[in-house]
């Protein structure tokens, strides 16, 4: 099942993955064969089968609405690649 170069680039953009031209070529080839393989599921008749959307069949548990401040702001910020005082700093979005 072929995937076009266009599609590879589209998916890479959606996933925010910068790929080199060589990577794009390789990805096209490898994704193509993986996608072909997984299409084998088409052979199965699944009409009327309920999808498994969750690993466990129970309702989600709740927590009470009690406030528990984490209280360690520096721990949250300590790994920031770039920061200005207590903000995370990022490059602007380029509008073109």
């Amino acid at each position: 099942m072929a995937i076009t170069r266009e599609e590879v680039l589209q998916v890479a953009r959606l996933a925010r993955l910068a790929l080199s031209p060589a990577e794009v070529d390789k990805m096209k080839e490898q994704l193509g064969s993986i996608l072909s393989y997984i299409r084998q599921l088409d052979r199965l008749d699944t009409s009327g089968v309920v999808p498994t959307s969750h690993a466990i069949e129970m309702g989600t548990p709740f927590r009470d609405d009690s406030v528990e401040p984490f209280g360690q702001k520096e721990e949250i910020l300590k790994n920031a690649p770039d920061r200005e005082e207590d903000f995370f700093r990022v490059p602007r979005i380029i509008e073109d």
Partner: protein
Amino acid sequence: MAGIPVHAWTLIEAARAIRDKEISSRELTRALLSRIERIDPKIHGYITVLPETAMREAAVCDEELAGGHTRGPLHGVPVALKDIFCTKGVRTTCASRILDNFDPPYNATVTKKLREAGAVLLGKHNMDEFAMGSSTETSRLGPTRNPWATDRIPGGSSGGTAAAVAAGTCFAGVGTDTGGSIRQPASLCGVVGMKPTYGRVSRYGMIAFASSLDQGGPIARSVPDAAVVLAVIAGHDRRDSTSVDIPVPDFLAATERDVKGMRVGLPREYFAGGLDASVRESVERALKALLSRGAQAVEISLPHTEFALSTYYIIAPAEASSNLARYDGVRYGFRADGGTGLIEMMSRTRGEGFGAEVKRRIMIGTYVLSAGYYEAYYGKAQKVRTLLRRDFTEAFSGVDVILTPTAPTPAFRIGEKVDDPLTMYLSDIYTIPCNLAGIPGISVPCGMSPDGLPIGAQLLGKHFDEEALFAAAAAIEREIPLPRLAPLEE
């Protein structure tokens, strides 16, 4: 235990020796740290070793013991964790460039539970990057080598943990299993590895790969050791909405249970022609071991088995593509230089920060969830998942455990399969269905290949019936004694 070097003890033996004050935690820890120094360069099981903090923790354990106080069953015992569990103050990398120097602001529940049981943390183990792989070759830090043959893979993604345990550089470890990542490396390294039922062990702080499939579990040199570790890390956690609120049974006691009358299912789909001869032979030995203890063999069918791999390679990448989207260079981890603007920063960060396998899976996952393809791929896979679960539910109405090979072959050579992802994916055909169904599975050593490479047998159980697995695996272990420590010394 005269004459046996301390690193060769089982975890239970080590724990008892500390409790009985035959050896101090400091001595034990020092012994293992020096072994790591000597041996680990040959196999590269560790990403991070913590000599100072480990000795400090060991000292605290010795003081507590002197004061008559033990924290829990692992008091003073040195263990280690796959580098996927958050350890506050200790970098946690998932063997990825993108988390190269990430210092978690909190501890995983598994980390906390080990500490609360008194364990000493020796370090963090190597793994396939973000747990995506079956050979520990996708680690950015370089591969881990199988201690039984250092030109071979240890399996993956918990290859570092399995190798370290088999090399005697920790008494046990905790790995994670999404499609076989505990069981398969355990099999290839000749040790015991268990993936508990989904929901048994908290995923809080266990960096996510595929949320509906991931589970943490023990890797150890004996079945009772694995039972002790699982009892420590299992239990309901209110921070994990998918963790189940049921009591933790006495897993250790289960290893003493009789298997008389236990019905052992043999799924024909897992024993098809073409199965490696030494694997077939070893698993047959495991079956004979069970039968000799009074178990019964029952032929069963798991008819949708051939579709498990495809189902997994839709669902796991889909969830992973979403779980790994947070690595965008904004709040933590690697951020790429150069580029103009935000979108380029994010794309370059992820392009340079992730390895090839991770990028491949993110691409597959993004594709199968995208508009127009969702129903055909993800929607379809969710339905096939239901069929796979039903196969097991039906099988378990007639058997108590299911016996299969763990891996299709013994360890292959490093570099042998890296260029063909699909071939690599096929390493997991026996282990994957278990994660899709959420049932527990264990791998226990049951043979050796003619080349002297370990082979394990897999046992699968009903939801929350790890006890039956421990009973059966312990029986096999008693009947088929095999060396659990790889002969690494020259």
